[in-house]
């Protein structure tokens, strides 16, 4: 991120969206809306004085709504570019018409409430789509109780809990009572491999759940973890060894069986009901927290973007690329890489990114004829 941010030949347009694309010969003319932050990017140095005094509060989307942030905020601490943004939906100045604390406190004069979105016109030779993923909202799977049972959380919420910069400083204080969760269940295929939701396999959940379980043990030697799974699809380089190490050195227990129901138990402890297909028995397990490995989907808006770029996508919004030329979309000059064209792990995403860069470079340098 930092490398991209400081590269002399990379111009970052964060907080921006594509609104239009026209083809001109072999080139593209893009209309980009650079949304206003109400903060001058050239002036702000993210000192944080405004944040400390801002009275407005909003759910922190980066922290998966596990805590509140201020109405003026830095999306996350390592974010690039490091500049503040005012969330006008929650800013008291914008909603009630008075406040202006941030403008008063900023001695650099970076705050500008009148700042408008900018519409930029970009002429480019190639476009690379790398819009990544969002996660499936498990609320509709009511048998898992997400949204009702406080200590049932998603994998991404867990990532924030176990993260040092997250809402609990990296400790597994569970949402209901702040007690340290020592007995955690990880439920696989929540929305994935599910004909009613995402029929495909999200590919990364088995491994990240195992990683999560190992992190829990590293943070707390008393922690015990249970991974409820069907096929454990750990096919990447070194993954089988990792799976084995988790069981042997980190006490991770693998239980083969889809979870049927999660029940709100005593003291906020979720009770997991499942069929252990190895023992051929229906069993239950009282846990202190449950982490749902929710399906990964194309980013919200991926279908809209595909329509705008006139590139083919499947019903979920994954961009379709021909298998012989997997970095190319259905439109010449538009390329794709990473999760936007299907589930993949980091090394695959990186390889695909290089592939898309190659195809774009070949276009920019013009095909010389083999």
């Amino acid at each position, binding site marked *: 991120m930092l490398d991209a941010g400081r590269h002399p030949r990379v111009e970052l347009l964060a907080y921006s969206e594509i609104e239009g694309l026209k083809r001109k010969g072999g080139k593209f003319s893009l209309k980009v809306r650079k949304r206003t932050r109400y903060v001058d990017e050239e002036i702000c140095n993210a000192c944080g004085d405004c944040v400390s005094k801002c009275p407005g509060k909003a759910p922190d989307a980066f922290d998966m709504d596990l805590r509140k942030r201020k109405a003026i905020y830095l999306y996350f601490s390592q974010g690039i570019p490091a500049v503040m943004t005012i969330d006008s939906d929650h800013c008291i100045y914008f909603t009630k018409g008075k406040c202006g604390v941030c403008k008063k406190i900023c001695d650099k004069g970076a705050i500008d409430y009148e700042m408008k979105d900018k519409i930029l016109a970009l002429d480019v030779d190639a476009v690379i789509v790398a819009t990544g993923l969002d996660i499936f909202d498990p609320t509709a799977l009511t048998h898992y109780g997400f949204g009702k049972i406080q200590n049932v959380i998603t994998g991404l919420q867990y990532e924030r809990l176990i993260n040092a910069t997250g809402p609990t400083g990296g400790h597994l204080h569970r949402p209901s009572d702040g007690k340290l969760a020592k007995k955690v269940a990880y439920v696989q295929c929540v929305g994935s491999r599910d004909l009613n939701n995402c029929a495909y396999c999200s590919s990364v959940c088995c491994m990240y759940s195992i990683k999560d379980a190992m992190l829990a043990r590293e943070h707390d030697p008393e922690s015990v973890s249970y991974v409820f799974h069907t096929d454990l699809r750990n096919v990447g380089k070194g993954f089988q060894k990792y799976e084995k190490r988790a069981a042997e050195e980190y006490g991770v227990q693998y239980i083969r069986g889809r979870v049927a129901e999660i029940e709100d138990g005593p003291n906020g402890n979720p009770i997991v009901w499942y069929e252990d297909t190895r023992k051929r028995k229906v069993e239950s397990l009282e846990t202190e927290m449950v982490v749902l490995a929710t399906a990964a989907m194309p980013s919200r808006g991926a279908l809209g973007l595909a329509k705008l770029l006139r590139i083919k996508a499947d019903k979920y919004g994954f961009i379709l690329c021909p298998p012989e030329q997997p*970095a190319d979309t259905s439109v010449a000059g538009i390329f794709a890489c990473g999760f936007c064209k299907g589930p993949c792990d980091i090394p695959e995403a990186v390889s695909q990114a290089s592939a898309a860069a190659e195809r774009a470079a070949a276009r920019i340098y013009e095909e010389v*004829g*083999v």
Partner: protein
Amino acid sequence: MSKQGRKDTVNGPRIGVFVCNCGTNIAGFLDAKTVADYASGLPNVIFVRENLYSCSEAGINDIRQAITDNKLERVVVAACTPRTHEPTFRAACEDAGLNPYYFEFVNIREHCSWVHKEDREAATEKAKDLIRMGVARAAYLEPMEPIIGDVTKRALVIGGGISGMTASLELARRGFEVVLVEKQKQLGGLLRAVNWIYPHEKPAAEYVKGLVGRVGKARRIKVLKSSEVTEVKGYIGNYIVSVTSLKEPVTAGIIILATGAEVLVPEGQYGFDSKRAVTQLQLEGLLAKPGTRPKNVVMIGCVGSRMRDRLYCSRICCMTAIKNAILIRKKWKSDVTMLYRDLMCYGIKNESLLMDAKEAGVRFVNYPDDAPPLAEKGEVKVTSAILGREMVLPYDLLVLETPLVPAGTNEALSRMLKVPLDEYGFFLEAHVKLRPLDFATDGIFVCGTARWPAGIQECIEQALGAASRASTFLESGRVKVEPIVSFITEEDCRGCGLCVALCPYGAIELIETEAGEKARTIDVACKGCGTCGATCYRGAITMKHYSDEQLTAQIRAAFEKE
């Protein structure tokens, strides 16, 4: 969090120390504040700061600012590993006008917090020791400039399978010359033995023929069939490679390794006889020809993989088996049963192919990890993990799903190219997550199943990616190399040639001077390994950035506890 140490130094340079918490990766297992306080009392240290993440934009800004504000002459960052973050911190120094080689990296994560998670106190003490040593060395660091070398605009691609051909075609399309070396008599690699490919849904032969035809027509690609690489000399930008079929060696700026993998032959297992018990690859051959029509087909997964001696999952076997099971149902109308441990149908298309197989009537039986099936006299006995009892399945054809294993030539190539292999014998990339197509050695790239088992589409993606990585050097025609090289003081050299003989990179040559023969380092080729320096009995060789002075100071500091 910042703490001023001594206001000024007596003689030495002004040193700033940055102690990174790495979230809780470091600060979770040692007392970072104590370590930072300790650092502020070290000789020449005039500035100390503790950061949550020194590598974040805020952390980097801190470093730049501190260099300017405090006129720092050396920067020590105690954090993670130089493998991933040294360039970042060096760049921060450079941005603030400090020579990047005035930067010293102290690893208190991999070398300390992560390995001493059980003992916070000891980890804290060790971090202090490491920083004291780093600070001592930093005082003796010298400024250096990067070495610039030229890049021959030609690529050498080793391996003419789908990965090698794809990478070659792409580089040729970009206007670069390519020499493609293939061991076999024909191009095409493993794919030539395959019958049908999906999700392309076409005969593999058609696909291979198309690619081979395009490679053959490409005037910038020189194909060397029935050829093997026998010697590699040189370095990024200027490799000199001997190939069996050529009298003169090939010169190339970069090398792409696309040597593929082999299918394990399950000798002695499940009655393997290449007739009634065959590998999945042999089945591809049977499916391509008319004739065979077995009534019952049984496939066994994980034959020779995910076991004690070969722990890894070969990634593509389940999918190959499922693809073939569907074809058998269509073509031979046989009953097909697939015995598996986990069905590795990751992603969209693989999962949907699994559904197709079920719709086509393929039967799946899950067997337990610790109870592999038995095959004898035309019957397979398998414990169904779901039913908990044994099933007996008659077969006319038994198909064994054996893994891809590293090619036999990997070891020799690894030695010649000086790139590492992983514990199984596949090539080991520079970083498993973030640099999957690079090696730690600049100028050599890897793609396809030489790196790890991969499907066809994944091989194509990696081949395009490797071409991209290679083209960054070929396009600019220049390469920047670390100036961490050996330096030979001519007056002290007697021209004995010991260093020339021992240098593993061929980076030292003997030159004729007025004072007789003398050794000289070829800077671009030198990797700074230090073999020559350690060998020279005349003490004529200095390792830049790791001079005796610097290392002695560091070692002394190790034993100089207050």
